[in-house]
C-alpha cells in the first residue's frame, strides 16, 4: 500500500524585492485548492515561523512532503530540514521551488508560479519540466551587442565553425572596453588587448557584423527564431569606403564624440575611433546639415571614391533565421548630474570616471596629459593641451551605487577601477596628491587585494568616508567628508574630482526584455535561469545572456561568462537540440501564458 502524499507548503516572501514581487495571498489561495495540500505556512524573512509550531503542524497534519516556494526559498531551507529531521520526514521530501527565475517585468508572474507549483504538487520534478521537450536547432546564432562580451561569444561560436550575426547599435564594435585606458589588476592597455580581437571578429569568415543596427522584432520558437533587424542608414558604402578621412576633414558640422565620452568633438561624418571595426565612415543623421536642410553635400563632393557616399540612403530591414541568441547588451554609466551634491555638470573640473578614462588615454583629447577643463574661444568647456595640470585629484567611490536614492546595488567594478585611475594619475603626475574616498573597499578576486596594497604603497591617500558635498572655493574644489576611522571631519581642497559612477542597465534593456520575453530584476538586469548553476541561460530556451547586462561585473568575469554562453550555444548546435523553457510553446503563446 502506498502512503498517501500529504503536502505542507510554505509560501516564503524574502521581501528583498529585487527579483520578483508576487501577490503571495493569491498564490496561497491557489495552493489551498490543491487536493493533497494539508497545510500552508505564509511568512516573510523578517517574521519567521518558530520551529516548534512548524513541528506541531507537521505532526498534527501528518505531513510527509514539505515544499518551500518563493523567491530565495533556500534562505529558510535550514529551518525545514531541521523540522524534517526532528519529525522523521525524509530529507528528499523537502522540495525547493524558486520563483526568482520567473520574475517578470511588471512583477506579475503569478501564473508561472502557479504552473510551477502545480507540477511539484503533482509529483513532477521541476528540473524535468525544463527539459520536457527539445526543439531542433538552426545552426546560426545572433549575438546582440558588440562589446567585449559579444566579441568573445561571437569568436567562440565562430571558431567552433558556426555562423554568427553580431548585432551592434553604434558604428563600431568594441563597446565600453575600447574606451578604457588600462585594465585592472594587470594594467594591460585595454585597446592593445581588445583591438586584435576586434580585428579577428572583422575578418572572421563565420562572423557577419551588423553595425548601426538594432533588433526590431522576433518570432518563432526556441531553436528556430526569425529576427527582423533594423539597419540604420550609414549613408557611406561599407564595401567601397577606403577610410581616407577626406570627407570628415571637410565636413562643416561638429557633434560630441560618443567614443571620447563627449570630451571632444567629432564631425557629422565620422569614424568612431581610429581602430574601429569596420574601419569605415558613417554619417550621423542627427547632426548632418544635408539631412536637416537638404543642402551641403560637401562630403559627397570631396570623396575620392565614386558613389561611395549616398546621402539619401534609407534605413533598411533584413530578416535572419537563427537557432540561438546571446544577449550581451552591456550597460550605461550612472548619470552623475542626478547626484546634485557632487556638482557634476556645474563644476567644470568634476568629471565622471569614463571622461577621466578618456582624458588619461594617450588617444584621448589631450594625448594623455591630465589637464584642467578650460573654456575655449567660444566659451565651450573643453580639454586642451597645455591647460595646466592639477596638483591634487580626489576620486569618489560609490556615486550612484549603494545609494537608496539611486541604485541600491554595488556596481562591483568601481573600487578597482578607481584604484587603477589613482595609479595612472600617480604614474603621469608623480607629484600630484591623490585622495580616494570610499565606503567599503571591495577588492575581491585574484590579485585584486594585492593591487590595492600596491596602490596604498604608491602614496595614494585612501580615506574611509563618503564625500558629502563638493563646493567651489575660488576655483578649487572643497570636499567635506568624515574620516570614519579617526572620527574626524575632513575638509580637503583639491583641483579635480573624479566621480566613480556606477553601472546601470541600458535604457532600452526593458524594451529588449519585453521583445525577447526575458525576465529582468527590479534593478533592470536580465535574469538568468539559476543564479548559481545556470548563470548564462535564461528562462526562454535558446536565449543566453552574457556580460554586464546580467549584472555588474568586470572584464575577466564578462569574458568568462561570454565563453560560457557560447558553450551553451555550441552544445545545442552540436546536439542539434535546444532545451526549451517551462513549456514547449512559441513565443506568442508564452506571452499569453505569462500575462
Amino acid at each position, binding site marked *: 500500500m502506498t502512503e498517501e502524499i500529504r503536502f505542507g507548503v510554505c509560501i516564503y516572501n524574502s521581501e528583498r524585492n529585487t527579483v520578483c514581487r508576487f501577490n503571495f495571498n493569491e498564490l496561497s489561495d491557489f495552493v489551498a485548492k490543491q487536493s493533497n495540500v494539508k497545510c500552508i505556512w505564509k511568512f516573510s524573512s523578517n517574521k519567521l515561523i518558530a520551529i516548534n509550531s512548524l513541528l506541531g503542524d507537521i505532526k498534527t497534519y501528518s505531513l510527509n512532503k514539505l515544499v518551500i516556494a518563493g523567491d530565495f526559498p533556500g534562505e529558510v531551507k535550514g529551518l525545514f530540514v531541521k523540522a524534517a529531521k526532528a519529525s522523521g520526514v525524509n530529507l528528499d521530501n523537502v522540495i525547493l521551488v524558486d520563483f526568482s527565475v520567473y520574475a517578470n517585468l511588471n512583477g506579475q508572474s503569478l501564473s508561472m508560479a502557479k504552473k510551477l507549483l502545480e507540477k511539484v504538487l503533482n509529483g513532477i520534478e521541476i528540473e524535468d519540466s525544463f527539459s520536457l521537450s527539445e526543439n531542433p536547432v538552426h545552426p546560426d546564432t545572433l549575438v546582440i551587442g558588440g562589446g567585449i562580451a559579444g566579441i568573445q561569444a561571437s569568436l567562440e561560436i565562430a571558431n567552433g565553425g558556426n555562423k554568427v550575426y553580431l548585432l551592434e547599435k553604434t558604428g563600431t564594435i568594441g563597446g565600453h572596453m575600447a574606451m578604457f585606458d588600462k585594465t585592472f589588476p594587470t594594467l594591460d592597455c585595454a585597446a592593445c588587448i581588445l583591438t586584435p580581437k576586434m580585428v579577428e571578429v572583422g575578418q572572421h569568415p563565420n562572423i557577419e557584423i551588423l553595425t548601426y543596427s538594432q533588433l526590431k522584432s522576433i518570432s518563432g520558437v526556441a531553436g528556430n527564431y526569425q529576427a527582423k533587424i533594423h539597419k540604420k542608414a550609414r549613408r557611406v558604402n561599407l564595401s567601397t569606403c577606403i577610410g581616407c578621412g577626406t570627407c570628415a576633414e571637410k565636413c562643416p558640422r561638429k557633434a560630441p564624440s560618443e567614443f571620447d565620452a563627449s570630451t571632444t568633438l567629432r564631425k557629422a561624418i565620422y569614424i568612431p575611433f581610429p581602430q574601429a571595426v569596420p574601419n569605415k565612415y558613417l554619417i550621423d543623421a542627427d547632426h548632418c546639415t544635408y539631412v536637416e536642410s537638404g543642402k551641403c553635400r560637401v562630403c559627397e563632393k570631396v570623396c575620392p571614391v565614386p558613389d561611395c557616399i549616398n546621402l539619401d540612403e534609407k534605413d533598411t530591414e533584413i530578416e535572419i533565421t537563427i537557432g540561438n541568441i546571446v544577449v550581451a547588451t552591456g550597460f550605461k554609466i550612472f548619470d552623475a548630474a542626478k547626484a546634485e551634491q557632487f556638482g557634476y555638470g556645474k563644476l567644470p573640473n568634476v568629471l565622471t570616471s569614463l571622461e577621466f578614462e578618456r582624458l588619461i588615454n594617450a588617444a584621448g583629447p589631450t594625448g594623455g596629459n591630465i589637464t584642467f577643463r578650460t573654456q575655449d574661444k567660444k566659451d565651450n568647456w573643453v580639454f586642451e593641451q597645455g591647460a595646466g595640470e592639477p596638483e591634487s585629484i580626489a576620486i569618489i567611490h560609490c556615486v550612484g551605487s*549603494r*545609494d*537608496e536614492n539611486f541604485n541600491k546595488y554595488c556596481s562591483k567594478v568601481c573600487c578597482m577601477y578607481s584604484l587603477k585611475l589613482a595609479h595612472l594619475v600617480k604614474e603621469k603626475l608623480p607629484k600630484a596628491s591623490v585622495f580616494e574616498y570610499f565606503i*567599503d573597499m571591495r577588492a575581491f578576486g585574484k590579485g585584486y587585494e594585492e593591487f590595492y596594497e600596491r596602490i596604498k604603497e604608491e602614496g595614494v591617500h585612501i580615506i574611509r568616508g*563618503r564625500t*558629502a558635498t563638493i563646493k567651489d572655493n575660488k576655483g578649487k574644489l572643497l570636499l*567635506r567628508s568624515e574620516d570614519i576611522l579617526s572620527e574626524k*571631519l575632513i575638509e580637503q581642497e583639491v583641483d579635480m574630482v573624479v566621480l566613480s559612477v556606477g553601472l546601470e542597465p541600458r535604457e532600452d534593456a526593458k524594451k529588449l526584455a519585453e521583445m525577447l520575453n526575458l525576465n529582468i530584476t527590479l534593478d533592470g538586469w536580465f535574469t538568468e535561469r539559476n543564479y548559481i548553476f545556470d548563470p548564462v541561460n535564461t528562462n526562454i530556451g535558446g536565449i543566453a545572456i552574457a556580460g554586464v547586462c546580467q549584472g555588474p561585473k568586470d572584464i575577466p568575469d564578462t569574458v568568462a561568462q561570454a565563453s560560457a554562453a557560447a558553450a551553451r550555444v555550441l552544445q545545442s548546435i552540436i546536439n542539434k537540440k535546444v532545451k526549451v523553457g517551462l513549456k514547449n510553446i512559441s513565443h506568442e503563446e508564452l506571452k499569453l501564458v505569462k500575462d
Partner: protein
Amino acid sequence: MRYRVDANLKTELKKFGSKDWNECFHCGNCTAVCPLTENNFLFPRKSIRQAQMGLKNKLASNLDPWLCYFCGDCSKTCPRNANPGEIMMTLRRFMTSVYDWTGLSKKFYTSKSWEIIFIMVMFIAIVAAFGVFLAPARDIFSNASKYIAPESGGVLINSLVPGLNGHQFVKIIEIGDLTMAAIVASLLISNILRMFYFTIIKDKSVSVPFYSYFTEAWQLLFNFISQPKFSKCDNKQYWLGHFLLMSGYVIMFTVIVGLLPKFQVEEIFPWYNWQRILGYYATFGLLFFIVYSIIGRIKKKQIKFKFSHASDWLFLIMLGLTTITGILIHFFRIGGLPAATYIIYVLHLAVLVPMILIEVPFSKWSHLAYRPFAVYFSKLKKAAYKKQASLSEFSKAA
C-alpha cells in the same frame, strides 16, 4: 575605558520612535553634510554607532543629539535611507527619559495610554476643582449684564465667583500657577543636574577646566534666546518658525505665571497697549507654528515631518487646544459673554496644566532647558579638549 554592551538597547530605542537602527553602514555622509559638525562633535553617525553597539552609558554621556535641530539635510542625502535626523530626534526622546529620575518620561514616551490617562485625570481634576470650589455665580446666564463692565462692555473675568473679589480670585489662580511652575522647575533642575552628572562628571575622557564654567556661562542665555546654531542650518524658515514659537511661548509663560496679577485684570486695554500687542505677537507665533507643523506632519513632504511619534501629535494637539481656548477667552471677554468666558477659561486651564506638567519636565518641551545646557556643556567639553591638546603639546615639547 571599557563599556558594557547592552544587547537590548536597540529594541528599547524602537519605542522612542525610529524603527530601524540597522540601516546605517557608516559612510559618514550625515556627519559631513551637517552644517553643525565640528571635530569631537560628529553628527549623527557617532550617536547611531553607539546605539547600534548598545553602548548605553556612552550614549548617556553624549551631548550631540541636543545640538541637532533636525533640518533634515542628512536624511535627504543618506544613501541608506537610514534617516539620521529622525534617529537624532529619537535619541533626544530617549535622553529625556535617561535624565528623568522619576521614570515618568519613559512611561509617557513609550506608552500612549499612560500619557492620555494622565491628561484625562488632570483635566477632570481641574474642571472638578473649579466646579466645586470656584463655581461661578448662578445668575451668570440670566443676569449677564451684572458681570459686564459698564464703560468698556467687557466681562469682569475675576468677579464671576461669588464671595470672592477680583483680587482674591487672581491670588488663588496665581498660587496654582506658581505651584505648577515650582513643580516643573524643581523637576527640570534636578534632571539637569543628572544630565550634568552623566555628560560631564561621568565622562572620564574630559576634565573640564574650572574657569570655563564661568567663561562659557553666557552661552546659556544666548542659546536660549536666539538658537544661533539653528540659524546655521540651510533652511532658515525652520529657524524662523521655531523662533516665533519659542518667543511666543516664553512671553505667554512669563505673563501667565510671573505677571498674572498684571495680566488678568478686569480692565480691557486699548488694542495698542503693550500687553495686548505682546499677547497678539505670542498668539501669532504659536498659531503659525502649530498650523505649519500640523500641515507638514499631514503632508509628510519635508523630511523633518515625515515620521510623527505619538508624542509629536499630542504636543501639537494640546498646544493647539490651549491656544484656541486662549483666543476664545479673549474674544468672549471683549464680546461681553460672561458664561462662555468662564467655561472656556476653565477648559483653557484644564488643557494647559496637564500640557505643561507633561511636556516641560518629561517630554518634548524639556529641550527648552536641555538644549541650552547641552550647548553650555559642549563648550565645557571643548574647553577640556583644548586644554588636553595644549597639555599634550607641552609635554611633547618638554
